[in-house]
């Protein structure tokens, strides 16, 4: 990381074929916060899961505020084995953005600020929590129920440095 530089692309993947999992590995601790941006669709299956550091235990929870074009709703999920940053079907082209503040500290649990943007389904803002004090060094973006993300979908991880 260049001195004084911030908002840097860490890694990006544009799918050349339908794919179940995109992984960001060996994430540097040189930043303060992470921003993930997805743009695309799924060719099979309908939902995206996210896991940190390959943790498949029931350490994830979520509070979701969302609208379906008619009503405003809020739901909660606790003790999940992953977090789900979208709402509704990923068969529709959409963008998903989530931010992980202070991701590399080894003292606190990790809170995630998540925006879900499905113009044919749900628009929402979510709070996610990963109940682990480990620094995040790996993020897996997985098609739930063995679903695949479609060719051309993009996955980018950015790093923000506070200083």
């Amino acid at each position, binding site marked *: *990381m*260049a001195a004084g*530089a*911030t*908002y*840097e*692309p*860490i890694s*990006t993947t544009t799918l050349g074929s339908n794919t179940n999992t995109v992984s960001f590995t060996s994430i540097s601790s040189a930043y303060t916060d992470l921003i993930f*941006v*997805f*743009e*695309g669709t799924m060719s099979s299956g309908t939902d995206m899961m996210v896991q940190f550091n390959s943790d498949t235990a029931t350490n994830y929870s979520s509070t979701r*505020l*969302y*609208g*379906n*074009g*008619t*009503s*405003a*709703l809020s739901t909660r999920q606790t003790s999940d084995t992953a977090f789900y940053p979208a709402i509704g079907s990923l068969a529709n*082209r*959409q*963008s998903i*953005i989530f931010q992980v503040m202070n991701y590399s500290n080894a003292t606190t649990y990790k809170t995630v600020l998540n*925006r*879900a*943007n*499905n*113009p*044919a*389904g*749900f*628009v*929402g*803002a979510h709070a996610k929590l990963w109940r682990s004090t480990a620094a995040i060094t790996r993020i897996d973006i997985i098609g739930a129920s063995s679903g695949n993300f479609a060719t*051309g979908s*993009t996955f*980018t991880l*950015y790093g923000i440095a506070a200083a």
Partner: protein
Amino acid sequence: MATTYKKIASVTVGSGGASSIDFSSVPSTYTDLVIKVSARDTTANGEFYLRFNSSTTNYSDRWLYGTGTAASSTTNTKLDFFLASSGYTANTFGNTEIYVPNYTSSNYKSVSGDSVQENNATASYTLLEAGLWSDTAAITSVNLIPAGGTFAQYSTATLYGIKNS
């Protein structure tokens, strides 16, 4: 690795107001666009439209918004966001951030937007928006158009480019 999130252009509306804010000849060298807007209308209308390449068709969105007393969700056939209307407390402006990933792709264009007003008086709005422009053309211009007709003086808009590599 290159630093990204760079300012492409910025506009501040002058004393005569402006019927639109236009960013033309958007370079294709970035991956995503971010548009940050602080705006007020000289009329009682509290919205502005986002358009790409001057197109007036093929837009859709989902809104989730709160008024201070209730939350609701609606669907529109446009990309519209909040600004402060002329009836709002003087010197208040509405703020909006819009994110457009993969704006040069040959797919439809997804839009994520957050928009707020605050007035310390009558109802104000907080908005989350999921938008789509169902067009495969690369975005080469961005147009912000006040629904009431005129952006007030001191309204600002800045276009940023983000590069993913």
